[in-house]
Every structure is written in C-alpha cells, then in structure tokens.
C-alpha cells in the first residue's frame, strides 16, 4: 500500500535485537522487496520497473555493478531484493514540490536523518538557495544554469572548481562531464571510485597493467575455488549469490574471509528455484576464515609462504614455473620477502591459527583454477594496495591469471562506476587519452593533474576550491570526516547537485546552492531527435544499453546530459580558446556523443552499432589475451611490507558497513534483518569476549571516539552495544553515521582512499544519556 512521506523522523532509540540469520535471500527477500516497492509506488509502476530491469531491451539496475547473464539466460525477474528496492525508491510516486521548501528551512533539513530526507520523494524542479538565505526557492532552468555558469566564469582559475561524479552517471553523461571540465580548464574530477575501489585499480594496474578485473560470470561458474574476501554479497550484490551457487553446483568450492559471519556467506536460498523456496538452499562457504579487520595482507602472505613450502616439499608440483619464468617479473624478491614472514605476526594480524590457514592451502592445492573476489573490506585500509598486490602474487604463483576460470575480481558497488572511469572521469588521465581528447575537440586539455575526493575536500576546506558541482551522489555523506567535510562544503561560494532525490548534500551547502533535478535510470529520456538510450559498463567490462520505461517524475526534469551540455554552452560561450564541441548536437542525439567516444576511448570503435546488440559488447581484458601492458610486458610479483592494524589496550578497530536495508548512503529502513538488528542504526557490534574484557555490557549506550594522530576528538555519540560474533578486537557500525570517525588524512597508501574499514576507537559511556 502506497504511503505518504513521513513527517516524523524516529531516532530509533529502542532497537530490537534478534539472532543473526544463517542464510540469505529466499522468499523473505521477495516479500521485503515487494513491500518496500508498494509503499513507494503503484503496482503498475512496480511491475514496469521490475519486469524491465536488467532485460536486454530494458534498463540497467541503478544499484550495483554486478553483471547480467548473457541474453537468453536472464530470468523474467532479473534483479535482487536490494535492486528492487533501489529502483522503486527512484520510481516512487512521492514528490517534493516548492511548498516543501517553504515549510522547511535548509537549517531544519540539515537536522533530518538521511532516511527522512530520502523518503520525501523525487525532486521535481530546479531550486536555488540564494546567498544569505536559509530557504530553497524555485528557479527556472535558464536562471539556475546561468547562475552556475556565471559563478564558474568568475573564478580566478578553473582549478577553483570541483566536478564530482557518482557511479550512477551514464557513459554519455560522464564523457560530457569530463569534457566540459577539461574544456573549462581543470582536471579536478573526483569520483566515488576514490572512496571505494581506487585501491583495486591502483594495485591491478601496477601488477597486471590493467586496472580492472579479468574474470567473467562464466569464470566464476566454472572455477574450482572462489575466494570471497572482505565482502558481503548477501546485502551488497545479492545476484552474485546466484553465480556462487552455480560454482557450487558445478563442483567448485568457496572460501569466505571476513570479520563478520554474514548470512550470504553461509547459505543462499534462490527465490526462483524450488531448492531455494522449499529446500535448504545451497551452502556457500566451504570454509569461513573469521579474520581480524585488516588481516588480509598477512593471510595472503601466509598462504603464499605455505605454497612456497609445498613446492619445496614436492618440487615442480605446486607452482606454475613456466608461467612465472616467462610471463612475470620480481619473483625472486617476492619469494625472499615472503619467506621471512613470522607466524606470530600472522596470528596477531589475522587472529587465525596456522592449522586453519593450512586447511585453505590444501583446498588451493586441490584446485587447478582459482578466482579471488573482493570488495570494500580490502580496499578501505591504509595497506589496501599492498593487500591486493599480495592477492595478485597469490594468483600468479599457480598461474591463475590470464586463463579461463581464474583471475582477479574486484566487485564494484555502483552501477556505472567502472564506466565513468573508462570515460575519463579521473583527475590524472594518461597523456594518450588527453591527446586524443584534445585532437578530437581541437583544444589543449589542462596538463596539471587535478584533485581526487580527499584532496578536493582539503581544497574546499582551505578556500582553494570555491565551486562544487556534483553529478549524482551524496558527496557530504559518502565522504570521511563528516564534520570537516561539512565545514569544507559550507565554505564554498556555490554548491550544485544534479540529483533525483533529496539528500544531506543539499542541506549542507555553499553560500549559494542549486538543486538541479534529473530523470532517473528507469525513466524515458526524450530529446530533440527522439527517445534516447544511455550506456553503462558493468563490473566485468560488459558495455550495454539502458532504456527507461517510466514517464519522468516531472515535466520540469532534464536529463544529466541535457543539464551538462546546457551548462557547458553557458559557461564556455565567447571563450576564444573554447574547445570545438557540438554541445547542442550532443544534447539532441546521444548517438553523437557515442560517435565521439568511439574516436577518443580505445575499445569503443563502432560504439553505436555494437552497443545496440542484445547484451552490448565486452571490453576484452588484455591479460586474457596473453598481454600484460606493464612497462616490462610481464605480470609483476611484488614484495609487500608486512602491515597490520593494531589498537592500543582498551581500544578496538572499527569497520564501517552498510545495513541490509541500505543503498550506499541511504538507509531505506532502520532494520538490518540478516544481522538481527531492528529499529535502529546507532548500533555498534562488538565481540562478547571483548565486551567482557572492556568491562562493558551488551545493550548499554556508548559513544565511539576515534583515535588519530592529530589529537582531534572525533565522536559518534549514543550507540547501543550489541554483543555479536565480530572478530576479536574488532567492532562494526553503520556508515554514514560513523563517517564522522574517519579522519580525512587517514588514507590508503597510493590510492588515497579513506580508511573507513580500519579506524581505532575507544568506547565511553554515552554522554547524551548521562546528560538526560
């Protein structure tokens, strides 16, 4: 039953805690998906979205980037619980109109929860908060974009502007956005990748020469062994469980490595199969390594040492010597380094005993082909890049790179995050790309590298950046060190967001703020030449088309491409050095954009023709064609200094995490049913033995205080302690509520990704409760 947007904003003070689930999905997933969808919109619209999502003539799920099965193998219901919720959260019938902003000031809205803001519905017309005002008011598109263009043109340097992209943006919008930013004169193109898989791209590019994974769904289906490391597929990419079930049905094995024993790592009940509806489903993990937060580098170093020792015991039977000798470099240094590993250090870092790791080694030795999958549990650590390099070492040792049924699989979290980077959303694109862009549009792109997300926040904080333009996303909540980030955003002269729904980034804003509402993935995109489609690239490099089916939420909405091309025309008009870009033709017909992409981005030749075929086309990974585009032409072993996350006595290492009922920064409800949390998000999960050791009681209220070298007190207050089987010494709590604890300067080596999965905290009795 459709419900009106909430007026109240419950704090979730009285959570109910139940036993964590030991299986994921099944019939309850369908029920929850339908319940949420029908709260948001009509049965007709729900049917339209769900039956068209991830179909070859339909639209791409705006949720995660997990790939679709090949055409002919897709079910009529080719989506998961979270995808269904996500799309119907977008397709909601609720609308925000001008009176809403008369009723609520920006300051009032800044006091509302992420969930409340999101639940108000779709944005329907451009809004402006003028300088000094505390209210948004309606504005027409010409004035809104003219205002933004005017502020951009008045900057002393183009580098005072920041152009942020979130992973929802299509290839077309992303290409236009980066072209606009560069034609304007800056490479300040931070993106959500900087917060997520930047570490994966850095490590894979360095060691294999390609910054993407090299596996397909078929590789996972037919692998002998799949590792799931630092990820929670049951909540964050549930359709992955279907692929993992196929691995098991084909006789493969799975090892899960995680600080939390998540339901989806234990068992999967496929809601479209009899065995999942009335049966027990499929066991996912054959082995579960209950690892300490940040212990993965030590684990893979230990596994690599065990493989070297197994080779010592049975020479010529364990390592792929032909591959190592002919196709890799750096083996000798790597071997020497790993052989110096201390098992005492491994124990301290991982919390795992040698026998447990040896059992996994035995599985590895029985497996000819191995895939390693990972997500944020690996990438958001200080030593994330070395950890992923060590995984590459592990794969290289037995030749599990560049073959079918084997390889590296970073599982990406937002539907087109990979495609946006392919289209040039990066602050330091290779010169070859910049040259091609300059040739195609007759201009000289800026040579100076730009700012990533963390450096953009620093620049706004320091007054070096004055205008922020966000293409989708919720920058304020996705980023670390919430207080520092919010102060930085508030220092801006102008912040503008191209958005479908209201979020905190609209309420924590610059002196002038613009809301530029846009159509969603599920909606029809009509331009001068007719109805358009957009294209996206999934986590396994398949590029395909997406065609919305619903009428837009409002007639006043513009597409992302239309907003950006209009803005570019207004900003760059009269500039003598302006690039030769047919912005109006781009807006009228997206084929014109794709024709230009085909001439700039390698691998996109005949883009328009190829992408309209069923399922689109795959970008081949050179690694699978026997080519390692590294400087040496070989895959690279690396010697990675041992690192672990330690916490002083009386402290814990905190990982931030999503709940099951959450998409990125937006919680749909206050529940997290797989973990048995109901009715609250201010929860911190701690191992019962740690609770005892710290003298704390399950159910008591505490503040979380971050400990960092700058001595600044970062406090997330009033959390309920929940005794939970996290790894010893580790705690877990939801983001974005705990982003406040992640120091801006606490970043991963090389990738500069905030270390949101490894924060040292201490727990103190709740100051808020004490004050009551």
């Amino acid at each position, binding site marked *: 039953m459709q419900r009106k947007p909430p007026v109240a904003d419950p704090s979730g003070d009285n959570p109910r805690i139940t036993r964590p689930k030991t299986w994921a999905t099944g019939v309850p997933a369908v029920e929850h998906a339908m319940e949420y969808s029908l709260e948001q919109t009509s049965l007709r619209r729900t049917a339209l979205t769900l039956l068209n999502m991830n179909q070859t003539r339909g639209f791409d799920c705006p949720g995660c980037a997990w790939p679709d099965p*090949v055409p002919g193998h897709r079910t009529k219901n080719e989506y998961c619980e979270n995808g269904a919720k996500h799309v119907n959260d977008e397709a909601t019938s609720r609308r925000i109109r001008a009176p809403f902003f008369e009723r609520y000031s920006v300051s009032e809205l800044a006091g509302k929860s992420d969930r409340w803001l999101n639940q108000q519905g779709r944005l329907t017309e451009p809004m402006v908060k003028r300088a000094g005002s505390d209210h948004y008011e309606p504005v027409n598109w010409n004035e809104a974009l003219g205002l933004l263009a005017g502020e951009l043109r008045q900057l002393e340097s183009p580098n005072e502007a920041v152009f942020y992209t979130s992973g929802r943006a299509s290839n077309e919008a992303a290409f236009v956005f980066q072209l606009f930013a560069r034609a304007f004169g800056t490479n300040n193109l931070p*993106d*959500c*990748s*900087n917060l*997520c*898989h*930047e*570490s*994966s*791209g*850095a490590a*894979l*590019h360095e060691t294999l*020469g*390609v*910054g*993407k994974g090299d596996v*397909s769904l*078929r590789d996972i*289906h*037919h692998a002998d062994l799949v590792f799931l490391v630092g990820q929670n597929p049951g909540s964050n990419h549930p359709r992955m469980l279907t692929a993992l079930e196929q691995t098991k049905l*084909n006789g493969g094995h799975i090892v899960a490595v995680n600080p939390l024993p998540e339901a989806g790592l234990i068992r999967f009940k496929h809601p479209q199969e009899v065995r999942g509806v009335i049966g027990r489903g499929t066991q996912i993990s054959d082995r579960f390594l209950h690892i300490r937060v940040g212990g993965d580098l030590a684990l893979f170093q230990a596994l690599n040492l065990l493989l070297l020792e197994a080779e010592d015991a049975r020479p010529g039977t364990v390592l792929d010597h*032909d*591959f190592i000798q002919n*196709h890799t470099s750096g083996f000798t240094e790597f071997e020497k380094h790993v052989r110096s590993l201390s098992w005492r250090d491994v124990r301290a870092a991982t919390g795992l005993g040698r026998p447990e790791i040896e059992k996994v080694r035995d599985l590895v030795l029985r497996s000819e082909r191995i895939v390693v999958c990972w997500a944020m549990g690996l990438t958001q650590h200080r030593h994330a890049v070395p950890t992923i390099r060590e995984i590459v070492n592990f794969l290289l040792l037995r*030749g599990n790179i*560049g*073959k*079918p*049924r084997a390889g590296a699989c970073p599982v990406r979290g937002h539907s087109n*995050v*990979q495609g946006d*980077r*392919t289209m040039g959303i*990066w602050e330091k*694109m*290779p010169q070859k*790309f910049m040259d091609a862009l300059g040739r195609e549009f007759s201009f000289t792109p800026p040579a100076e590298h730009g700012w990533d997300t963390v450096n953009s926040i620093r620049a706004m904080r320091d007054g070096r950046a004055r205008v922020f333009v966000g293409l989708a996303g919720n920058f304020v909540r996705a980023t670390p060190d919430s207080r520092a980030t919010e102060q930085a955003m508030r220092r801006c002269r102008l912040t503008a967001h191209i958005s479908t729904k209201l979020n905190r980034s609209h309420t924590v804003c610059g002196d002038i703020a613009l809301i530029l509402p846009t159509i969603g993935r599920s909606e029809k995109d009509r331009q001068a030449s007719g109805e358009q489609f957009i294209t996206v690239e999934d986590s396994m490099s398949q590029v395909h088309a997406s065609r919305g089916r619903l009428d837009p939420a409002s007639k006043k909405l513009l597409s992302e491409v239309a907003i950006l091309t209009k803005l570019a025309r207004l900003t760059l008009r009269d500039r003598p050095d302006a690039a030769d870009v047919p912005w109006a033709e781009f807006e009228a017909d997206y084929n014109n954009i794709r024709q230009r992409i085909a001439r700039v*981005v*390698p*691998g996109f030749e005949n883009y328009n023709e190829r992408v309209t075929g069923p399922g689109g086309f*795959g*970008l*081949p*990974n*050179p690694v*699978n*064609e*026997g*080519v390692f*585009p590294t400087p040496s032409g070989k895959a690279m072993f690396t010697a990675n200094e041992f690192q672990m996350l330690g916490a002083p006595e009386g402290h814990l290492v905190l990982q931030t995490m999503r709940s099951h009922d959450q998409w990125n920064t937006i919680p749909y409800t206050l529940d997290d049913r797989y973990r048995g949390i109901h009715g609250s998000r201010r929860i911190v999960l701690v191992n019962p033995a740690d609770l005892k050791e710290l003298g704390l009681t399950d159910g008591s209220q505490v503040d979380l205080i971050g400990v960092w070298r700058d001595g600044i007190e970062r406090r997330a207050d009033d959390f309920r302690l929940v005794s939970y089987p996290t790894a010893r010494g580790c705690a877990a709590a939801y983001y974005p509520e705990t982003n406040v604890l992640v120091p801006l300067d606490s970043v991963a080596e090389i*990738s500069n*990704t905030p270390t949101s999965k490894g924060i040292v905290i201490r727990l103190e009795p709740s100051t808020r409760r004490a004050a009551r």
Partner: protein
Amino acid sequence: MTIIEKSIDIDVPVRTAYNQWTQFESFPRFLEGVESIQQPQRALTHWIARFGAVTREFDAEIVEQHPDERLSWLMLTEPRHKGTVTFESLDSGRTRVNLRLDLTPCGVVHKTGSALNLAQRRIDRGMESFKEFIEVQGRETGSWRGEIRSGRVRPDPALGGPLVPTWPTG
C-alpha cells in the same frame, strides 16, 4: 573412457584447414545440430546445440592451440569430455584432419551404445561437412594465428593484444 575418432583428408593446404577451424562462429554453417558458437574469450567457447527436441548449452575451454598442428579442448559442462583435432600436411594442397574425443560417460544416455553410435555418426557427418565446406569455399573465412598453452593465450603476432582502456579503475 570411451574414444570416438575420425580422420579425413581435405583438399586444401594445412594452413587453410587450420585457419578455418579457428573460426568457431562459422561451425553452425556445417555442423549438424549446432545452432551457435560464441567465443567470449580467446580460450573459451560457448556452444548452443540441438539434440532432437532438446537444446543444450556447453562451455568449452580451449586448452591447447598451435597453428597448423593441433587444437584441444575441455568441455566444462556435462557431458564433460576432452577433444583434440590435429592437422597433418599431406602435400602442399592436401591435409589430413584427425579428430579424437575422449568421452567420460555420465548419465544414462551417454552410457548406452546407441548414444555412442549416434555421437560417432554425428562426428563422421560433421567432419564430412567440414571437408565439403572448406573445399567448396577454397579459402578460410578468417583466421587466428595465436597460440594457447595450458589455457593461456599467446596473442596472434599480427594482431597483438586488444586496444582497450588500461588505466586504473576505482
């Protein structure tokens, strides 16, 4: 282990015969029952075949591929088997093509002699059709001259690797 073998002499040079065998997408043009073959990766093929009223799909990994000599594969889907085709140059214009399938029996159908006889007849007809196809055509429809060893690709020297974005993807 059950072996099915077939040899046939074809009136084209070994290079032509081999090159044609690398063009998997063309197989449905002469192989009875095969509806389509895709090659999502150089060392991986996906087959859709029809057996009477039943449509089956298979994934096969190419584990060895050596120009003008040999191609071996491993069927990853039931019924699993290994196969090898070798090419012998008889003279500058004639080639002997030898096919050998090692079938691991699985399932009732594959255990019966009649099923094996059916498979043998299909192989015989397929090889005859291949001979007719390439002899009438007189030249290959395409080629890939790279190598595959133990499932690992060595690219075609004339083509090199694919040109795609290689920069880090976050």
